[in-house]
């Protein structure tokens, strides 16, 4: 879809056209962002099927509620907010699944230990989703939006419907919680620092 001048219409323009009745505009807009929106849903929900349902819920919701968009934020911020809300809704509905229990921590340990030489921590590959699963949903969403997607704290606050201070706090707690696993995360994401360079809270010390 291009304008008369050959330029792709802006997100705002596409949303305006959708609200005005254009049948193609929303599809164009959503396709433009759905890869990132999928990343948000999957990382936040940590379950592909639930995340797919969350993304579908969000898409339908955005389609129908487009008229409510008032332009206080960017369209992409608005879309992310709807996806985060749909994802957290999914998690709430699936509240029976513990997300921070000792059982999950054990599953996490089993994940990175599986099939590797325990003596060689640098070879351990940690599944990022497993790491995220340790976090409470709100902290996870904050970490995903800020650290993984690179939104500013201000935009993240709009997406997460909270204050910038709360975003910072949730991110800080999430990072601290993941700190013991940084060496393994390093293996998962291709970092190359050796494990000996890091100091884990569990190692020695006199704290």
């Amino acid at each position, binding site marked *: 879809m291009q304008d008369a001048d050959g330029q792709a219409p802006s997100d705002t323009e596409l949303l305006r056209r959708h609200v005005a009745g254009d049948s193609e505009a929303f599809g164009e807009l959503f396709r433009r962002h759905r890869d990132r929106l*999928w990343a948000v849903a999957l990382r936040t929900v940590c379950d592909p099927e639930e995340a797919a349902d969350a993304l579908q819920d969000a898409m339908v919701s955005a389609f*129908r509620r487009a008229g409510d968009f008032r332009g206080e934020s960017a369209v992409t911020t608005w879309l992310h907010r709807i996806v985060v809300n749909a994802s957290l809704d999914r998690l709430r509905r699936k509240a029976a699944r513990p997300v921070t229990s000792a059982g999950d921590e054990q599953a996490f340990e089993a994940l990175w230990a599986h099939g590797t030489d325990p003596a060689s921590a640098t070879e351990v590959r940690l599944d990022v989703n497993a790491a995220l699963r340790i976090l409470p949903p709100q902290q996870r969403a904050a*970490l995903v939006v800020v650290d993984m997607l690179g939104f500013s704290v201000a935009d993240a606050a709009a997406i997460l419907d909270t204050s910038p201070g709360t975003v*910072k706090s949730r991110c800080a707690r999430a990072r601290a919680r993941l700190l013991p696993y*940084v060496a393994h995360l390093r293996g998962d994401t291709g970092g190359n620092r050796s494990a000996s360079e890091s100091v884990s809270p569990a190692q020695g010390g006199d704290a």
Partner: protein
Amino acid sequence: MSGQSTHLDPGVLAEFRAGLITGRRGTALAAHLAECDRCAALDADLAEVSTLFAAVPPPALPADLANRLDLVLAAEVAERNENYSERAVLSRPRARPRPGWLAGRIGAGNRRLRLVAVRVLAPAAVVLAGLGYGLAQIGGSPAVTAASAPAPVPSASPAAGTATAQNPHSLPRAGAEEEGGSFHLVVSGTNYLPGTLSRQVKAALNGSSYAPGAVQAAPQQLRACVLRITGGTAPVLAQSAHYQGRPAYVIVASRTSGDLVLVVAPGWAAPGCSATSKDVLDTATLPPGI
């Protein structure tokens, strides 16, 4: 190394890094970090948590989900256009209520489907045309109610025989453009399977072996649902066949980026054209030029 007996708590350090601790306490923390190797290393690891997560490549949107989203969006567009149409033609009598479309998920109320509405669906085809993915599978629940198994209906179209010569693949072109949106349904003995769906569909499109007389006019409700998805364009192929041993319709919609294959349970061809995974059994996209 400072030799201090007290090191910073990771939570406190993380808050400091996030800018949540300032003033005199922040100054004291900064001073400690400058002197304490252990806490400085901890601080570096905290910074690396963010760096590592930022470096994780984003997950690819699965092809089956992309297809599913396009189908749902096409239905949303159709729904809205239908509503526009209904508002514009207030004098026309309303059709029966729709019970099924994404019921429960969206909380569809008393929405209605009317065949005349498919005439305004053309833009939905654009949504489908945006697909460009390979073999995909939706949902996967094999639960199919056989109560409304696709059954051949007496051919009601005088054009049923003339469609045969129009298909470049020598099969009767399922969607010969006819007034009223009618197209033909091939009654096939094929049992489509998840792992071989694309190959089987290609064979069906390229093959010429079908039993004489096995071409029927598509039932009205199937026609309505297919045209709803294709945006009013006749499908390349519409078969009454089996999928994993159970009755199913196999629909192939032509698109510039590759034909879309849709395998649906008989229950799909009902008022509302359900898009739940119970009724949409499988999808695939065939590469262009098949």
